[in-house]
């Protein structure tokens, strides 16, 4: 949408005074309940998969990690409200950077230390 050749910003702030609190409609009870339901299902699945032979035994660890990632995603979306809203862009960028650092620390440490113990012990 553009006016007189200039693009309009998505949020038209003329009705909003900068710096003044605006009560934004927050995620409702339904959203928390749905998130809680998903989290319960994923938690129960994790404990069941770990203690039975429902999954092919060598694949259980991978399955558990996948379930954990799914549950972390559910928590981020339903409890921490990481969405696609325009207010959320910076939060998502920071999250992406955080995930990258966590990945580097975890895989880097394991990679180096496994090599070290294979070569030196």
């Amino acid at each position, binding site marked *: 949408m553009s006016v007189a050749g200039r693009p309009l*910003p998505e949020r038209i702030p003329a009705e909003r005074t900068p710096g003044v609190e605006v009560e934004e409609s927050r995620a409702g009870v339904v959203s928390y309940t749905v998130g809680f339901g998903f989290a319960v299902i994923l938690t129960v699945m994790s404990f069941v998969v770990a203690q039975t032979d429902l999954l092919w035994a060598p694949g259980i660890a991978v399955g558990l990690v996948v379930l954990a990632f799914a549950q972390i995603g559910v928590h981020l979306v339903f409890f921490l409200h990481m969405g696609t809203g325009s207010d959320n862009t910076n939060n998502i960028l920071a999250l992406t950077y955080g995930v990258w650092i966590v990945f580097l620390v975890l895989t880097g440490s394991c990679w180096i230390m496994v090599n070290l113990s294979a070569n030196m012990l």
Partner: protein
Amino acid sequence: MTVTAIDAAPLPPEALNPGPAPTRTVVAYGFWIFLLSDIIMFSGLFAAYAVLWQHTAGGPTGRELFDLPNVFIETACLLLSSYTCGLAALSAEHRQAGRFYLLEAMTFVLGAAFLFIEFSEFAGMVAKGAGPSRSAFLSAFFTLVGMHGAHVTSGLLLLLYMVAQVAAKGFRPHVLRRLLCFSLFWHALDIIWVGVFTLVYLIGAR
């Protein structure tokens, strides 16, 4: 006046500049940066545990020590407390004081129950001679899980402090922003616990 005339009218200057974000958004962003740096600190402890978990030095292994039904109750407590904490944040938004106090009380009780179970697990392990000085595995275990427990403890203290602020000052905007930070903190603890129960307990007990 035609439509073209309206379209050609000069825009007010504030229409082109969205202006600063609401304080609430900025505060939540700053706190989110803190939470991410906290999670990065935890990733170091997770990495140490992943490297050391098989170095039991002839001592007890996770399979011998971990009691999964116990861990399941702990997980249920923390997950439920996350849910009640979210509902409490909602009732604060809607200025429902009674509901808010009730839900925060439930959050506190569930968090305290989690800590109690964790503490009795630790005490039982130390009594069995499986304390943090027994092996590299146990050092890493107590550091990682204990650090999460320390965070839950500070979360409980923060909860008491926030409830006291609401009681003293009511639902003022700055109190609501602090409440938002508290509930972000509490939900983040639950996210870290997902990593702990998966990597430490479920994979470690196999």
